[in-house]
């Protein structure tokens, strides 16, 4: 029997050996992935015992940080804090509630901020073995705090229903401004001692007018109004032989199944039957773009759809890991001609995020090269150094400037730039002359009493550095040129004043 006993014994030991190999594979091989697994809510537990890292603006302002409630105590708890006018920065920082709900970068970079990011733990692995505690990492964002604050101020000064402003560095894709109105103070929901109050506050905010919890810069979709004509014009210019001076239809009205589509005004360009593209763009003739969207002999629905898609429609736009803007839409594949007519000048079923329109403007300003937008410049790990002072270790994440695509040719881009400059020179936004800014206005009628105002463009007008989109929604007395145009110019000025 002994021979058999030995064999069976070896099988028994082998079983435990297999276990050992499997445990090695899990705890050494997969540990990192498991720690940041999407279903893993461990990081949310006992989180107040960890020193969470800072979120810092491009010009060095701390937007969010954590304070020890009883410094010096090894068992201290940490309270999340936000700077004084944090309302302005909510679209960037998001919030970190005492109930452990999170949003924005607080959510997207949660594991890094908490110091449990895999990249950080491997970075300081040796240090960990020697007992040094990894602390939460620091995040350096692309946001310009002055311009961001200015954006929020100018938007809220309009007392709108909802409003947003996004500014993108055209060369890199860095988001310099991402403002949203209405907002709230994230400090008011961050009290770890009173999660009950935090929850109440969150519930209130959830029901509040204008939905402050949902940022308007890149999380919500709005009809882009006439600013969408930029994309239709780009599609038109993309066809062989078309230039900004090509003649396009410009009737007084376009009959639809229910009523007619008219222009906001008729002059020597809108409503005369046919006019050069640049003129219709500057004067924002609705009939021209409605027809371009349905008339296959001139352009047609498919061409506009294809152009929209190249600009990034129909797919969520990745900003950071776990932070996407929802997909913008332009109607296609529909039998309803009216829907396409309306959608082609940015009304009806056409919906975009403010970020998407800023990206369109930035691509035009950058000679047709569209950069992937991003919010985080770099993230740096920290450990507890001598005497418990935090020490930065190494960079564990650095933004890669990636090309998002090339939706339009360089030639098309320069013609569109001319057309946008023409809007200010002789078109719908002559009030912005002297502000060194160019763009397309948009005024939408959402209901009989509610309207939206857009200004989408680039600055400086002669040598574009920034692409932007500003959207304000409120009463019907709002206009793209007079409401959103000056706001855009103000934000750009704030960016220039370094």
């Amino acid at each position: 029997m002994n021979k058999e006993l030995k064999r069976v014994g070896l099988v028994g030991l082998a079983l435990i050996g297999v276990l050992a190999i499997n445990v090695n594979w899990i705890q050494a091989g997969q540990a990192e992935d498991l720690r940041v697994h999407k279903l893993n809510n461990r990081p949310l537990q006992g989180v107040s015992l960890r020193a969470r890292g800072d979120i810092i603006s491009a010009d060095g302002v701390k937007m969010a940080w954590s304070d020890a409630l009883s410094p010096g105590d090894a068992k201290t708890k940490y309270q999340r804090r936000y700077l004084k006018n944090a309302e302005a920065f909510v679209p960037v920082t998001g919030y970190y509630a005492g109930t452990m709900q999170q949003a924005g970068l607080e959510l997207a970079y949660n594991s890094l901020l908490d110091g449990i990011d895999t990249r950080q733990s491997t970075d300081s692995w040796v240090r960990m073995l020697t007992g040094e505690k990894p602390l939460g990492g620091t995040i350096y964002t692309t946001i310009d705090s002055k311009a961001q604050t200015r954006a929020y101020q100018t938007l809220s000064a309009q007392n709108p229903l909802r409003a947003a402003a996004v500014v993108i560095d055209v060369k890199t894709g860095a988001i310099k401004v991402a403002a949203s109105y209405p907002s709230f103070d994230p400090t008011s929901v961050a009290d770890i001692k009173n999660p009950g109050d935090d929850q109440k506050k969150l519930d209130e905010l959830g029901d509040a007018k204008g939905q402050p919890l949902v940022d308007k810069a890149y999380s919500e979709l709005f009809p882009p109004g006439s600013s969408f004509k930029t994309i239709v014009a780009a599609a038109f210019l993309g066809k062989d032989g078309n230039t900004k001076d090509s003649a396009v239809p410009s009737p007084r009205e376009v009959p639809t199944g229910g009523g007619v589509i008219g222009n906001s005004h008729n002059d020597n360009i809108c409503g005369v039957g046919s006019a050069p593209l640049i003129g219709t763009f500057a004067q924002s003739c609705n009939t021209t773009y409605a027809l371009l969207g349905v008339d296959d002999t001139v352009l047609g629905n498919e061409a506009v759809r294809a152009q929209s898609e190249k600009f990034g429609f129909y797919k969520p736009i990745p900003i950071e890991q776990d932070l996407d803007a929802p997909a913008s839409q332009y109607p296609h594949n529909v039998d309803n001609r009216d829907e396409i007519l309306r959608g082609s000048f940015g009304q009806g079923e056409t919906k975009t995020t403010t970020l998407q329109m800023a990206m369109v403007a930035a691509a035009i300003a950058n000679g047709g090269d569209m950069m992937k937008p991003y919010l985080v410049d770099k993230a740096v790990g920290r450990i507890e150094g001598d005497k418990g002072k935090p020490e930065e270790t190494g960079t564990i994440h650095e933004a890669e400037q990636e090309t998002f695509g090339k939706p339009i040719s360089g030639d098309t881009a320069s013609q569109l730039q001319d057309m946008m400059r023409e809007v200010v020179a002789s078109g719908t936004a002559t009030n912005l002359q002297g502000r060194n800014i160019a763009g397309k206005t948009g005024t939408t009628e959402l209901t009989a009493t509610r309207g939206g105002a857009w200004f989408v463009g680039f600055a400086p007008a002669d040598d574009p550095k920034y692409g932007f989109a500003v959207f304000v929604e409120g009463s019907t007395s709002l206009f793209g040129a007079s409401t959103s145009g000056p706001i855009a110019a103000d934000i750009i000025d704030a960016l220039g004043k370094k």
Partner: protein
Amino acid sequence: MSEAATPTAGRTRLGASLGLLIFAIVVAVSAFAQVGLARDGTLPTGMFGYGLAIAALSGVAFFVVRRFTPYADPVLLPLAMLLNGLGLAMIYRIDQTTIATFEEDKARFEATHPGAKYTPFGAGANVNGQLLWTVLSIGLFIAALILLRDIKILQRYHYTLGAIGLVLLVAPVFFPGVNGSKIWIQLGPLSVQPAEFCKFAFIAFFAAYLVKKRAALSLVSRKVGPLELPRPRDLMPILIFWVIALMILAVENDFGTALLFFGLFVSMVYIATGKVAWVVIGVGMFVGGALLLYGLAHVIGGPLEHVNQRIEIWLDPEAFFGNGCSHGGEIFNAVSDADGYKACVASGGNISNSEQLMKGLFALGQGGVIGTGLGQGQPYLNDLAFSDEIFTSFGEEIGLTGLMAVLLVYVLLVERGFKIAIATKDEFAKLFAGGVSFVFALQVFAICGGVTKLIPFTGLTTPFLTQGGSSLLANWILIAILLRLSHEARKPAPVAIQDEGMTQIVNLRGAQE
């Protein structure tokens, strides 16, 4: 291989045993100390109490061994004590009412779940209950050492034992199930898992049966390639056993126990006969039966679905996180509310939840190579961190390094068991020790493999670590039997009397003068 296997035969090695035992106590008490230091910043008040209890129990056990089985294997008792002590420390650690964030967690829960009652993490971890069970177990261990002078008594009554085993096995059917498995007997406040005990009853029964039937089972009816098939009529017992195992599986939803019994049967038949054919037939039948049940479950559903769910969860745990609905092999999204629950049941689907498995894996991930340190992780986040998932709780707090050590202790236990089996002369004892050791290894494999997603979850207990009386009692009895066997194997043979002194001359005549 007899004396050569145990070069120390004839020496008691009690000194070494005591040294190891003291080391085991120190490790366990240190674990308690570390938990307290990490949790409250001070040595826990309970540490001395628990430490003293562990030390006292060890001392008593050691002196009983010294008195009754001095030649027994010196390593078994320290190993078992070490695991038992560590298990106590972990259960103590999971009892969460004193964690730093207790108030905060409570407030947060009440904020986000208005009206619901807050159950603290680790609710159910009961270190005092476990200590009581440890005391009882050591008591039973001592009783077994003293009373089981001769293991042959088990051989003599093997039919009785087999019958008792069957009764124990079937008993839970008549009691309400827990978590979909009917493996418990409720006796007032106590719930016992009879399967833990019927293991031994069956091992004894089989060992005795096989000693009798060895020759018959070794007969070859025909050869198929390298396989030497047994006579068809000898297949009867294995068939009966197969049916019994599958019935357990189907009715009690206890995949783990069925696997164990099959493992013990196959391994013991092989040890007795040396015929690989038996192994092939046995394993083939078990796999075949499991597949048959798996297939049937999809068709007829009912109680069989539970085993199925475990397999489905194992294949795709993420789909079942926070309740998933599986229906005819298709998986639907998480069912988080009452409506979804109703809809799932209405469609004939089954709800299962993989949270326990996933959270266990997350705990392992959190622990990584060196662990968070005892008292510094969050093993209590998993509902059954102190029982089914205690292996992963250790994984989190003592890391890969610590788990390897724990597995090494298991390896040593198994290795000592087989060594004892090889060292004894008696066939029954050989079979018994071999079977017991293999089943022990298989059980460790099944439960730890289950919680680490190596195999589908089996719901067995983790020997000596798990909170729960049945498992502790049964495993301590096992240690007692192994000690007794090794004592019998290693004690020096009685020495014949050589010197009878000078022969005396007796004058018979002088007596009459």
